């Protein structure tokens, strides 16, 4: 054990009182996770998964835990609205459920959608498996899970979403996490449990937005379970305040013939980290992931994609694009494991990146481990600059240099959003990309 005083970040996060659920097993889980966080501390860059994301600066800062005034924070409701999306909505401000901003009337039959804080007041037993997560506390020396641990210890609210077997929810469900400016720098945490029953279908829109300038630290952990033959379309738009720190982990489990399609857009934040983990545990499960990360200024955006093929004839296709400008840094790791017995699997991964400034940096690392037979696998990563010939072609037609660069960059990113079925949403995403580009 270290004799040094704990880092300010660790000390401030441990300083927060644990939420008291009154549920014996849950309070025990929270205590154990807090102890694991205290013992394991924060990962440094010697931990492989954190090699390119240094926490040195963040570790020196302190955050007040929880926002007692979350209910009173002014949030512009129009900032929550998305074109092409008009359905049930669950809104959290600084990690606290806001009924006034949410839309939970007339939920379709077969859809359960409620804040975790309310769900725990009823029968908490169905949440026990997802919330217990023994793996997080098993090895105290393993610090890579630090934020998931503090999330498991401290998150008092989040989303509980269930779709009953064979129910196809027609309208998209919107989950919005707002970081709102406060008098102090806040740490807040949210825990989401999402389950689609056998043959169920859902379109899910996850948004991360900022309201006012702030430098908060937020952690979000989502467990997404897709039962046999379930189908999920999930779009995540991360456009939080430019100074905010956002650390998320999304864990998907796909049972037999389940299908998930993810579109992820990473635009906002100061230090942003997303661990996107998927396990294809049932035969014939299919996963498609598409994403764009576009850090500028001094932003640092890190995506860690980890896909495990664990069953026969499973398919994953991942296509990610990164664009870094100014002094920003993008990190992408795409790790695919085809486990023993996952014969006949098909895995492909592509990550192409653009550097728009000489001081920008992108670190990309595709990894492929195959332990099964008759596997088709392909992966590739590139880092480059805009094509000079294309630029000149546009300029020679009268398009100013800056506009031509923006046009080509947007086209580069848009390629991975083309298969988003909701056209209005696709247009909106495209406009968000363009808005982020230097003009």
């Amino acid at each position, binding site marked *: 054990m270290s004799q040094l005083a704990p880092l300010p970040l660790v000390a401030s996060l441990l300083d927060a009182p644990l939420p008291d659920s009154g549920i014996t097993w849950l309070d025990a889980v929270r205590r154990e996770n807090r102890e694991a966080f205290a013992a394991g501390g924060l990962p440094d860059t010697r931990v492989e998964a954190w090699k390119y994301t240094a926490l040195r600066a963040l570790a020196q800062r302190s955050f007040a835990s929880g926002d007692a005034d979350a209910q009173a924070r002014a949030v512009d409701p129009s900032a929550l609205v998305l074109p092409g999306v008009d359905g049930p909505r669950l809104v959290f401000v600084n990690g606290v459920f806001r009924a006034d901003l949410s839309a939970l009337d007339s939920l379709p039959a077969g859809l359960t959608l409620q804040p975790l804080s309310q769900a725990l007041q009823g029968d908490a037993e169905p949440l026990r498996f997802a919330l217990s997560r023994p793996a997080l506390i098993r090895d105290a020396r393993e610090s890579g899970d630090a934020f998931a641990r503090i999330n498991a210890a401290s998150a008092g609210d989040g989303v509980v979403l269930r779709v009953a077997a064979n129910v196809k929810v027609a309208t998209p469900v919107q989950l919005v996490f707002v970081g709102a400016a406060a008098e102090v720098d806040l740490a807040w945490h949210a825990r989401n449990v999402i389950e689609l029953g056998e043959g169920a279908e859902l379109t899910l829109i996850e948004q991360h937005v900022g309201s006012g300038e702030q430098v908060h630290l937020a952690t979000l952990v989502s467990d997404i379970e897709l039962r046999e033959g379930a189908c999920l379309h999930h779009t995540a738009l991360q456009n939080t305040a430019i100074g905010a720190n956002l650390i998320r982990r999304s864990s998907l489990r796909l049972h037999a013939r389940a299908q998930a399609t993810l579109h992820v857009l990473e635009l906002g934040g100061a230090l942003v980290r997303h661990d996107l983990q998927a396990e294809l545990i049932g035969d014939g499960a299919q996963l498609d992931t598409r994403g764009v990360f576009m850090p500028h200024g001094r932003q640092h955006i890190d995506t860690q994609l980890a896909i495990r093929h664990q069953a026969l004839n499973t398919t994953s296709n991942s296509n990610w694009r990164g664009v870094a400008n100014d002094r920003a840094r993008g990190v992408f790791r795409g790790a695919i494991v085809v486990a023993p017995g996952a014969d006949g699997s098909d895995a492909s991964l592509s990550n192409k990146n653009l550097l728009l400034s000489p001081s920008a940096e992108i670190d990309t690392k595709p990894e492929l481990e195959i332990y099964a037979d008759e596997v088709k696998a392909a992966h590739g990563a590139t880092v480059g600059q805009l*094509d*000079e*010939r*294309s630029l*000149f*072609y*546009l*300029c*020679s*037609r*009268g*398009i*100013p*240099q800056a*506009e*031509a660069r923006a*046009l*080509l960059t*947007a*086209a*580069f990113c*848009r*390629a991975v959003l083309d298969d988003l079925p909701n056209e209005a949403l696709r247009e909106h995403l495209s406009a968000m990309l363009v808005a982020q580009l230097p003009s």
Partner: protein
Amino acid sequence: MSMLKIENLHARVEGKEILKGLSLTVNAGEVHAIMGPNGAGKSTLGNVLSGRDGYEVTAGSVIYNGIDLLALEPEARAAAGVFLAFQYPVEIPGVNNTYFLRAAFNAQRKARGEKEFDSMQFLKLVREKLKVMQISDELLHRAVNEGFSGGEKKRNEIFQMAVLEPQLAILDETDSGLDIDALKQVAQGVNTLRSPDRAFLMITHYQRLLDYVVPDFVHVLADGRIVESGDKSLALKLEEHGYAGIGEGAAA
């Protein structure tokens, strides 16, 4: 005042001198053909006039409508009415052809202080041009040049020219790689755009295009300079005798 006056132009590419004192005057309404053997500097001339990076002008001047063309950025040259039809049009995946053309059209109008077109106005204009140029509107819905055949790419260049309505159009080997039907279509497009206010500089290796677009002047470019000028009969002479012997004793 002539539209374009090139005087004693010297230009280098990667340290090598390609243009070595080229002079040429073009007036509104004229069609000039620039012919010459490979390596004479034909494409370099087109690239220098349109402002491509990597071409260093070491001496001489280019005055276009009374302004120093070489001082302008490529986009400003376009807004001033200079258009280069590329020898190798670039494929740009992810950028819709119509969107690209409207961005170019409006950028030029904006630069000239004119009102931009909204999408309805622009679509109307584009439809008219398609009709005149006898081009299928299927071209509009695709990404710029992506997956286009050689002929489609060249026709797309001519179509862009029709929409952008330049004053000075430079066609860089627009005829290369075209079969006879595609060549006729491209030539017809060019002929449609001929007007008393517009001038053409057609850079070509072969005489064949000139059967369909009849030039007012033919110039032979060799070793970086115009070595002989004449009317269309010069092109026929070249076709018969080749470039050997051309320029000997000419007023260079």
